[in-house]
């Protein structure tokens, strides 16, 4: 299976503030009544948008200044909670191609990597600086460079390092981020292992 080699993501950014943004927040459960992932994009942060409106505020995804953003920026423990792949699927279908946060929940991180969405960790201070730049000039282009592990912007002088574990970074850069091909390659070894384990071979 040949997949895109993801070495760089460039696009406009949007900052969704908050820590512990869970996958129910990213895609409320009622939108999971579906047998395909198609069409989930429009429901990303559906209830958060409604809540902000009710409080007389605008959710960043409803703010036309950030229309067309492809890089999502947020706080710590992003994507905690449910294992629903519907969450990164919704973000991908909305148009996001990378996520920058202080930290990520583990299942969300893995689900996103499998879809080819780099989830990179950056310090709270750098995130605040980047968010301020975007707030001031929503049109600036943000670039994640996986080779250099750096986030930069055009026009202004911003550069910050990010971290992305090697087990995610290398598959993204080599176009092997969806592991199914590698797993299928190992099927002969799988059968041998099954035969060697008592509770599996007994059946």
């Amino acid at each position: 299976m040949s997949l895109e080699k993801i070495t760089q993501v460039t696009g406009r950014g949007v900052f969704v503030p908050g820590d512990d943004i869970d996958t129910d927040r990213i895609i409320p459960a009622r939108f999971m009544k579906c047998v395909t992932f198609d069409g989930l994009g429009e429901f990303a942060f559906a209830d958060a948008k409604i809540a902000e409106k009710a409080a007389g505020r605008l959710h960043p995804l409803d703010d036309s200044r950030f229309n067309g953003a492809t890089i999502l920026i947020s706080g710590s423990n992003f994507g905690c909670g449910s294992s629903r792949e519907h969450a990164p699927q919704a973000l991908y279908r909305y148009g996001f191609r990378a996520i920058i946060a202080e930290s990520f929940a583990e299942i969300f991180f893995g689900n996103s990597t499998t879809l080819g969405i780099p989830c990179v960790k950056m310090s709270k201070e750098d995130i605040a600086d980047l968010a301020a730049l975007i707030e001031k000039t929503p049109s600036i282009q943000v670039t994640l460079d996986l080779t250099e592990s750096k986030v930069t912007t055009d026009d202004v002088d911003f550069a910050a390092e990010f971290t992305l574990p090697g087990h995610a970074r290398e598959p993204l850069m080599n176009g092997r981020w969806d592991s199914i091909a590698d797993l299928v390659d190992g099927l002969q070894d799988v059968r041998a292992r099954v035969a060697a384990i008592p509770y599996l071979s007994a059946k």
Partner: protein
Amino acid sequence: MGKTLLEKVWEEHTVRTLPDGRTQLLIGTHLIHEVTSPQAFGMVRDLGLKVLYPNRTFATVDHIVPTDQRAEPFSDPLADAMVKELRKNCAETGVTFFDLPTGNQGIVHIVGPEQGITQPGTTIACGDSHTSTHGAFGAIAFGIGTSQVRDVLATQTMAIGKPKVRRINVDGKLAPGVYAKDVILHIIRHLGVNGGIGYAYEYGGSTFDAFTQEERMTVCNMAIEGGARVGYVNPDETTFEYLRGRPYSPKGAEWDAAVARWKAVASDKDAVYDDVVNFKAEEILPTVTWGITPGQAIFIDEAIPNPDDLPEKDRATAHEAIEHMKLPAGTPAVGIKIDVAFLGSCTNGRLSDLQEVAKHLRGRKVSPTVKAIVVPGSQGVASIAEKMGIAEIFREAGFEWRGAGCSMCLGMNPDKLVGDQLCASSSNRNFKGRQGSPTGRTMLMSPLMVAAAALTGEVSDARKVFGIS
């Protein structure tokens, strides 16, 4: 140097090391349900692959099933389509389906153990984050996304990095009226909702030794709420006795061989851990959450904290929680008015949960201001509870006795909060909007605390309401 259970199970189930350094890990037992599997079956078909070991995948339907009107077709056509899709996928691939008419349907994390499918020393995966529940048997059990459900269907393996292991000891005797739910809420309160990222939690100590199998499941269920994808307890006689005679448990000579293997898989006495944390059972009191993460928890005799008094890293979420919950800082837990009481879920929807509440409930009545529902975790639980007269005790007290499913834990079926109703809930998540209404409010607590709140109409100390001392 000794090994942990995790290391032993990992070694036995390692197929090979992948080019990216992760392990291709054999998943001995795969559990599926209607919400996260249809796309996976579709992907397997689209790739021209097949279900490799259909006898190692087991299905049930739980998230979207109605708990009142259970005749098909369901009133919600989307829910109806999802059940039919799973039925079709199982029939086509030969996967065993604990379907609604079988009498064995229920929440996947309750069905696996009660069928004896969940066994020590095995690897288990399911497209649901509360798969950590199965760790109570000394299994290594992962919640996975749909692409990984595809991977497991097609290859019986998945790509995953080996976690570190944090040993969490709880020693001593819990006071009367303090339960396994309080233990896990207390642990998450102290280690944080992201403290477990990168770790498997191994729970042990004399409190866990004394716990029943079902109490261990309650704790392991919420490992993920502390950020740990995996939580487990070493298997012992309690585990073996629970499994003896269940439909999928080994029989005859195979049973003895299995028990010998299960004993050997437990962590060695001299196992080395990446981290060790100790708690004392005597310090744990009945606990409730006050905010929008399971870590925002207080003892029943405490008040909602002032965010500015919390560590800096917790303040933003605390402010957000206070705004969402409409409960100002300083509000005592006791006396917070509730609208709904929900007793059920993969955390606390097992027979022992219902038994414990029923023991205290006889002769009492739910407050007229409260809608109270009990949702047994499985048809098996429901059937035994009905035979034992437990269902009748709940009905007489004014609870609605429902059919088995996930129900109001996540509001994917018709059981939802309305508007900003506040729910005393025995489930596992108090996220904004979790129970089906974007403005709905959830306070997590033990089943008996839910019952106490249902009777009084407000968050109450169950020990006082029921005269437990």
